[in-house]
């Protein structure tokens, strides 16, 4: 069976839904998503969304903080789009129904967030993503956007002249079908699960990046992976930066607020990469608790404030760590949190492949450069959902649907591939390949990196790629074959892991979230540029592209 639409959006998180809403008035748009839209990872965002609403604040100030936070690797023209449109994006969602938290006078409340000079982060308690996603989904329902829920996209179909459509696998039936369209928008979110310790949902496996890579589209700046300083020890569930924004303290095993040694002015609210390295350093130098974590202490905020401002955090602590932060400090450690890198595209989501667009966390425009500021990525999904949707609309105006034949052939091939994967009943467990990949990435491509570790990681990931080809699924059923989905995701993650490590090896400097112990300085002469990794004839090629500079002069980044 072949389905036909003007445009297909892959992903039903904030960025995918916002893009689809933009297109739905004029075009036949359909969204494919591997989980029901409300289960997308956007729902988990806690802390907030940035917009310069304050009277003394301005989009320029927001842009400056973003560019500086990015360690000057962000493209300043894209940052301008992000920050200029921030206020209208937030207000639009308020108009759609999101119940943002308020100040006493009834206006939108804003809290301070790391790396920002103003309290600029709008929020809905500590459940901002939940509120935004539910609201945006409601609007998609209102507009009757067509959604293919629980469909896993398995490949893009394209030739050098552009996109024909894609193939996807329906969980409910176990069948692969073809979708033909003039344009495809990838809005598939982050790839956090490449790492073992991650705040991301289990489904965040970077499928969109792998789809693009395998269609010859470059991935950009993939070595820039944000490690959130405060994830709950054990499950690595996020403890929002909002907890520090509200006044929470970080303390080592000696009870000392150690941030005074690392960022004496901003203390706990220094940018994430700085705080994450500070915590790792404390642990490495023996001042961690049980050698594994430090304490996030919010007790002094008092019961009322904790219950009012941080209810989600408290609930997580109670249910996932068996402690009440009103009474005890929270054990935290850094964990993978955000993927700054992604599919190489311009500030309208256009990729090298005609008809293929990218938006949201899976894209790299780049607004986050070497390090994303908290509250900027929810903003990215809404601002660029709108912008990319508009751009895709313009693109569609001049397009005629191409033939369906290529998609039908691709379906045939994918069916065969999946069949042979399912038939393989003898071999190593997929899960052991996955766990080893996670361990390699955590240990050798994490908060601190160096040449030797990275070279080892590259060899090990390549080896794991070969082991994947011999690993077996075991006995599965056709319908709701989650083991098969997990295997396809693993394959995608192995592809991405190799790109991350390769980019990290080639970038012999420390910038933002990419920290090389053997090259601890930022090196603007050689590396003020974006890394591009492209797959050509099954080989990964590394190249570079210039950073778009602008009104903000490249300076040392200190806090």
């Amino acid at each position, binding site marked *: 069976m072949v389905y036909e639409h003007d445009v297909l959006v892959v992903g039903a998180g904030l960025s995918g839904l916002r893009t689809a809403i933009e297109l739905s008035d004029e075009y036949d748009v359909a969204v494919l998503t591997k989980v029901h839209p409300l289960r997308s990872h956007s729902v988990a965002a806690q802390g907030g969304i940035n917009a310069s609403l304050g009277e003394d604040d301005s989009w320029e100030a927001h842009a400056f903080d973003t560019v500086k936070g990015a360690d000057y690797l962000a493209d300043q023209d894209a940052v301008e789009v992000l920050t200029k449109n921030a206020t209208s994006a937030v207000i639009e969602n*308020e108009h*759609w*129904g999101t119940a943002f938290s308020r100040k*006493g006078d009834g206006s939108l409340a804003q809290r301070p967030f790391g790396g920002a000079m103003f309290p600029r982060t709008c929020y809905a308690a500590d459940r901002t993503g939940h509120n935004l996603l539910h609201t945006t989904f*409601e609007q998609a329902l209102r507009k009757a956007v067509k959604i293919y829920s629980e469909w896993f996209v398995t490949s893009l179909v394209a030739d050098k002249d552009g996109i024909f459509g894609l193939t996807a696998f329906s969980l409910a039936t176990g069948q692969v079908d073809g979708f033909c369209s003039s344009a495809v928008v990838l809005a598939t979110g982050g790839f956090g699960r490449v790492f073992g310790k991650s705040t991301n949902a289990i489904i965040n496996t970077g499928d969109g990046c792998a789809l693009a890579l395998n269609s010859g589209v470059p991935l950009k700046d993939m070595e820039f992976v944000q490690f959130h300083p405060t994830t709950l020890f054990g499950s690595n569930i996020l403890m929002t930066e909002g907890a520090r924004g509200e006044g929470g303290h970080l303390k080592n095993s000696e009870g000392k607020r150690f941030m005074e040694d690392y960022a004496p002015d901003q203390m706990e609210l220094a940018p994430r990469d700085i705080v994450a390295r500070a915590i790792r350093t404390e642990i490495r130098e023996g001042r961690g608790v049980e050698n594994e974590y430090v304490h996030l202490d919010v007790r002094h905020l008092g019961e009322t404030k904790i219950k009012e401002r941080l209810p989600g955090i408290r609930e997580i602590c109670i249910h*996932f760590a068996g402690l009440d932060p009103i009474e005890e400090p929270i054990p935290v450690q850094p964990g993978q949190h955000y993927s700054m890198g992604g599919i190489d595209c311009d500030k309208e989501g256009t990729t090298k492949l005609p008809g293929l667009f990218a938006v949201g966390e899976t894209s790299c425009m780049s607004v986050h450069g070497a390090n994303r500021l908290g509250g900027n990525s929810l903003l990215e999904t809404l601002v660029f959902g709108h912008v990319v949707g508009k751009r895709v609309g313009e693109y569609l105006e001049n397009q005629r649907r191409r033939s369906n034949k290529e998609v039908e052939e691709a379906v045939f091939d994918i069916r065969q591939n999946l069949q042979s994967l399912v038939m393989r009943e003898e071999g190593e467990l997929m*899960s052991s390949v996955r766990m080893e990949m996670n361990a390699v990435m955590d240990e050798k491509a994490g908060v601190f990196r160096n040449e030797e570790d990275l070279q080892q990681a590259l060899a090990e990931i390549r080896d794991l790629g070969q082991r994947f080809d011999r690993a077996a699924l075991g006995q599965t059923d056709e319908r*709701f074959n989650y083991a098969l989905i997990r295997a396809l995701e693993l394959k995608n993650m192995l592809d991405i892991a190799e790109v991350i490590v390769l980019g990290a090896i080639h970038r012999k400097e420390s910038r933002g979230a990419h920290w090389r112990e053997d090259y601890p300085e930022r090196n603007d002469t050689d590396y003020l540029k974006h890394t591009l990794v492209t797959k050509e004839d099954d080989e990964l090629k590394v190249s570079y592209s210039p950073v778009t500079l602008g009104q903000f002069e490249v300076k040392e980044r200190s806090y």
Partner: protein
Amino acid sequence: MILRIARSRQGGKITHYDLYKVQFEKGMSILDVLFQVQDRMDPSLSFRYSCRGAVCGSCGMLINKMPRLACRTQPETVMDESMNLQDFPPIMGRPEGWDPEKEILIEPLPNLPILKDLVVDMTAFYAALEELRLWAEPAEGEKARNQKPDQRDKIRRYLNCIMCALCYGSCPINHESAEYLGPAALAKAWRFYDDSRTPNADRYLKDALKPNGAPMCELIMNCVRACPKGVAPGGAIRKIKSHDKE
């Protein structure tokens, strides 16, 4: 630790239970042990998941006859807990052979058709959102609307709903009548009705009072006990009902 898991290859009904011996470490959730089964023992086991942090609402199921989120349920505590739900068929009785002292019983969420193993068909649950048109008509203007903190507080608990359907699965009325819209949708209707910013608030109330809506509720309050997010949909339904008399 032993899991006794309901299986249904073709969907429709539970055909049998499989037993799995899992390794349990402190801090693990039921979702973690289900993955252990899928990863190492039986890759054919199907269940939904996403966030593993009790925010996405994917993993609702019946654990020891209580509707729960697998990711937020600790195996150690579930043994001696009770939600004090009013009985109705799916949560009563004991499957043959189940030893509650030794085994944790895992079954699909009741009141929705089984598609495979622990995966249920949520169509009816989602359809209620559309039937009641549970969305806001976009406001006009350049500015955010005003809403005082105490006005927001009135709807706060309803905002927390993650659409996990545990309330739907715990409701004896939903069990008896497929047409009942269910607690979550009605609570959400109240959320729009009671939002100080909603201009056409009455339509939500009117829709919620349709014959297959609030009037069907008998205020049994299983939903309030089962809800993992403190939404207390039954409270909203009571308020909706009180407007019926006016």
